[in-house]
């Protein structure tokens, strides 16, 4: 599938960044373009670029101002930018991960409210979540917080009006089209619908982040006994 997007804009950020923006509203097409450019910059090894930070519709190119400047970085990024961006599924398809999730009541305090808000049974909400394939659109906010797009429209709910404190790490949370697996104990206004036995952030591992941007994720249901066994093994 080819995707029509306007040419990206380039904006200076402080003394060490260039923001490349493909759209002002979230879409798979914009995120496809971000991921394609992220990969193009990574393989081109642009001089002076120290980090590239992909997000939903834009990506930040961070450079060392002692080595390069905004104009040089912009020119280099323009020269490596793909002329045409296909959808992520054909061009930038990442790995596919299966995450084990337990929907037991005490891991899923908001499941009943999501069911009520969407006029579905709890089982139907769970099945919709299990049937969907998610895409890692970006990491953000805190270490290992991978924003996954792909929550089916039938179970989309808005954020709560106020965040709830003390939501445990590994909680599976949803808001609008986004799903996320928390990595640290944090307040959140998202709905908590399960607990993952699979860690996205592994503090002691040499490769601590389970996903790359562009990877696909689906969920596999485990009962409490299997959940506890998996947690004990990790």
């Amino acid at each position, binding site marked *: 599938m080819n995707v029509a997007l306007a040419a990206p804009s380039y904006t200076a950020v402080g003394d060490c960044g260039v*923001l490349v923006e493909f759209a002002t509203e*979230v879409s798979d097409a914009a995120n496809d373009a971000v991921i394609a450019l992220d990969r193009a910059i990574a393989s081109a090894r642009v001089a002076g670029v120290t980090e590239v930070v992909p997000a939903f519709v834009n990506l930040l190119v961070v450079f060392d101002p002692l080595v390069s400047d905004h104009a040089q970085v912009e020119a280099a990024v323009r020269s490596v930018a793909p002329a045409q961006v296909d959808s992520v599924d054909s061009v930038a398809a990442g790995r596919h991960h299966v995450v084990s999730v337990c929907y037991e009541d005490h891991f899923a305090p908001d499941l009943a409210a999501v069911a009520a808000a969407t006029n579905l049974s709890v089982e139907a909400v769970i099945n919709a979540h299990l049937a969907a394939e998610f895409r890692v659109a970006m990491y953000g906010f805190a270490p290992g917080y991978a924003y996954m797009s792909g929550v089916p429209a039938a179970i989309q709910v808005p954020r709560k009006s106020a965040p709830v404190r003390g939501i445990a790490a590994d909680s599976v949370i949803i808001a609008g089209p986004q799903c996320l697996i928390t990595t640290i104990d944090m307040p959140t206004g998202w709905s908590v619908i399960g607990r993952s036995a699979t860690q996205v952030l592994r503090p002691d591992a040499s490769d601590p982040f389970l996903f790359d941007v562009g990877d696909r994720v689906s969920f596999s249901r485990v009962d409490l006994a299997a959940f506890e066994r998996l947690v004990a093994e990790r």
Partner: protein
Amino acid sequence: MSTVARLGVSFAGPLVTFQDGGRFGGLRFGVPASGPMDRLAHAAANASIGNDPDATTIEVSRGGVVLDGVAGSVTLAVAGGGCIVDHRGTAEPGWTVLTIRAGERVSVRAGAWGSWSYVAIAGAPVVTRWLDHTATHSMSGLGGGALVAGQEIKVEGARVEPVRDGEIPVPDFARSTGRVRVVMGPQDQHFEDDAIAAFRSSPYRLTDAFDRMGVRLSGPPLPLREVLSIPSEPIVRGSIQVAGDGVPTVLLADHQTTGGYPKIATVVSADLDAFAQLRTGDVVEFEPIDAAAAVALARARADQVTEFLSMVASPGRTITHRLRAENLISGAVSGQSVPGTD
């Protein structure tokens, strides 16, 4: 001679953490660099005792820290703000190098100005690492972590270097003039013209919502053209984001890596260390410069810092070195007055 020393923590205020030079490269995974709030003072403390400038230090908030020599001896350097160091019955303001011996106590507390100071250790403190760095990410506690009373710090390869003892000169540029240079954007187009004018010309005061993630300011509100929800996008250290209530926040060492609030401007890196040393109630004025000027400024500051650190790192930094230092420093920054902050 190299040996092991042990330091006991008998008191640590809030936000006293281990920090190395920072954990770069993790923004794409939601990980900010963390590291010292004031990178200059951290590097100066390290350089003054012959450490790598990025070596692990103890970052001390205004809450202070008290360290006891438990075993062995080790040379320490303290730098950052107008810190006051108590040791052997003397309490003197200023950046300094000293040697702590078993049975002695060193306390570091805030002085007339500044919010953060750094205790560098001549040796290798045994500190938890995360992603190869000891820098503490305060939101998660990952990295070296916060210091707590009762804790003992083991220092391997502890060195005693009396030749380095004494004052460390404080460069003029360590302290903010209250003028903070920024590059406008990347979302300044979303703000009302009045908001841009207010931002450029009004004083803003630091509030007490000030931690390693950032500091909220108070001053004229900065209204947006329309109620706006921008897709969450990358943030850098120094980003000035404006929430729906029109209140700006300057994001600092442990900033969230993305956010959905528009950023009106970004503080240039040359002014960030001194900005982080300001205190609740201090007032700043923002001065927009263009991106090319910001790069030129970053390069000029890097040269200044390199020269300063190399001077500070000279062993036997005594009267001769101090005289050299004063010549260098009085010539380094001119035409800037330091506002009273006390």
